[in-house]
């Protein structure tokens, strides 16, 4: 068992969690994104008042990254948020919390450990494959290993699961869950499980919120050519070079939209989640300009949806495939977000 404990500089005395909560007390909450949904549910279960949007924003998880060297089914990874576990790790500092992350080289050990934690009454977060989870709709099952879900109990051979992207709780047979936890390939979960060990701050501090906003602006406006605004511009350049009449072009631009709209709520969705966070942040920090910026981000999110719609119509052949036009739409997004994040950075200073 490999244990990794994230422990930010512990200044305050840390209250150790006494897990008195029982299974029945666990509250499932439908969420837009698996990781922010899982961690906010897990924290609420421990008495921290935190919404999904706050978990997402407080960990500075909004992003854009074009990663041509990571392939999914032969296609490049295009992420609209920071990599897996970024949200959970990002919450450790503002909440002055420690989370335990455990991976396993032997699948049996991973199962034993999960059962042990459940017997102790803990709610446990898991990283898993999507493909091997039978409760996913058939057409949604792809070999994607970056999914997150919560296990809150066991009944016979079934695990009781709160998967935040589903409206209600689900069940999964132990053999299936085991397969999903130990799927191999890109982002292989290696049975990853996690749970909070201690949480010192049970409420979100305004200063932490402003710090998270500044950090997120830095990511989006940063110098790395494949990340943030520069990543969008690079992807636009790549799209512009595609031939108009080619099956590969169709597959490539369709894939961009699938990464944007389907895999874990995607581009526009994350912009809306972040807008929800900014509204909360405005109230918490007493800075109404953040609320106004939330409105601007909603407009930007609508632009991402228009980009998705235009692309889907071309993929479907309702409009003629025009890579130049799609590249222009994407560049518009880059320009709008560049101005937005500069304004946001100033508002959070």
């Amino acid at each position, binding site marked *: 068992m490999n244990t990794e404990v994230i422990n930010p500089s512990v200044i305050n005395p840390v209250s150790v969690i006494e897990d008195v909560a029982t299974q029945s007390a666990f509250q499932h909450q*439908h*969420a*837009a994104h698996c990781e922010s*949904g899982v961690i906010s549910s897990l924290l609420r279960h421990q008495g921290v008042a935190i919404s*999904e*949007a706050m978990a997402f924003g407080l960990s500075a998880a909004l992003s854009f990254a074009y990663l041509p060297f990571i*392939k999914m*089914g*032969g296609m490049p990874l295009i992420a609209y948020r920071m990599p897996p576990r970024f949200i959970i790790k990002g919450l450790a500092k503002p909440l002055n919390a420690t989370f335990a992350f455990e991976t396993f080289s032997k699948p049996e050990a991973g199962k034993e450990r999960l059962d042990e934690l459940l017997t102790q009454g803990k709610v446990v977060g898991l990283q898993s494959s999507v*493909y*091997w989870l039978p409760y996913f*709709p*058939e*057409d*949604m*099952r*792809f*070999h994607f290993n970056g999914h997150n879900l919560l296990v809150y109990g066991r009944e016979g051979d079934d695990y009781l699961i709160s998967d*935040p*992207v*589903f*409206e209600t709780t689900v069940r999964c047979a132990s053999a299936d869950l085991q*397969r999903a936890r130990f*799927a*191999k*390939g*890109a982002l*292989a979960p290696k049975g990853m499980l996690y749970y909070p060990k201690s949480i010192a701050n049970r409420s979100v501090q305004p200063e932490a919120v402003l710090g998270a906003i500044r950090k997120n602006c830095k990511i989006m406006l940063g110098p790395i050519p494949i990340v943030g605004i520069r990543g969008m511009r690079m992807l636009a350049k790549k799209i512009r070079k595609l031939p108009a009449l080619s099956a590969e072009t*169709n*597959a490539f631009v*369709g*894939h961009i*939209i*699938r990464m944007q*709209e*389907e895999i874990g*709520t995607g581009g*526009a*969705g994350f912009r*809306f*989640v972040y*807008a*929800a966070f900014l*509204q909360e942040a405005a109230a918490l920090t007493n800075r109404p300009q953040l609320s106004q910026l*939330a*409105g601007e981000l*909603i407009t930007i*999110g*609508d632009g991402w*949806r228009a980009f*998705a*719609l235009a*692309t*889907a119509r071309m*993929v*479907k052949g309702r409009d003629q495939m025009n890579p130049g036009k799609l590249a222009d739409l994407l560049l518009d997004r880059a320009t709008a977000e560049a101005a937005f994040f500069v304004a946001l950075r100033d508002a959070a200073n």
Partner: protein
Amino acid sequence: MNVNEVPQEGNSTLSGGRKAVYAQNDNGEMVIVACPGWEVEEIVTMQAVDTLKEQASVALAGAIAGVCSPLEYWMYEKRMDPGVLAQSTGLWQWRVRRHLQPMRFAKLSPKLLSVYADALGISVAQLQSLPVKSPL
């Protein structure tokens, strides 16, 4: 996006499930709304699913004709490609590609057969055979 603009047309790939989306209510606040799906998502998801199904059906036809191994069919049927199958089995990709050839597949050791069968989530007997009826 306003709560009234949250797509209601549905998305067959969600099999009746609903996604949580954030939209603005009449007071301008972002709230979570359950969304039965957006056609755009359905189009791009089905595009990906169709590509995988197409690969599986081509491989099935090839396997029936004897130019592809059953392994190639099962690989695509389980939505993998040589890269994912290599990572799932721990074999080198060039070995996986060689094993896709019917001649070499026929000579695979029982141990390698079970490695592939495990990675694909099927039995060795299944791996060595083809479905009676085309799944498409």
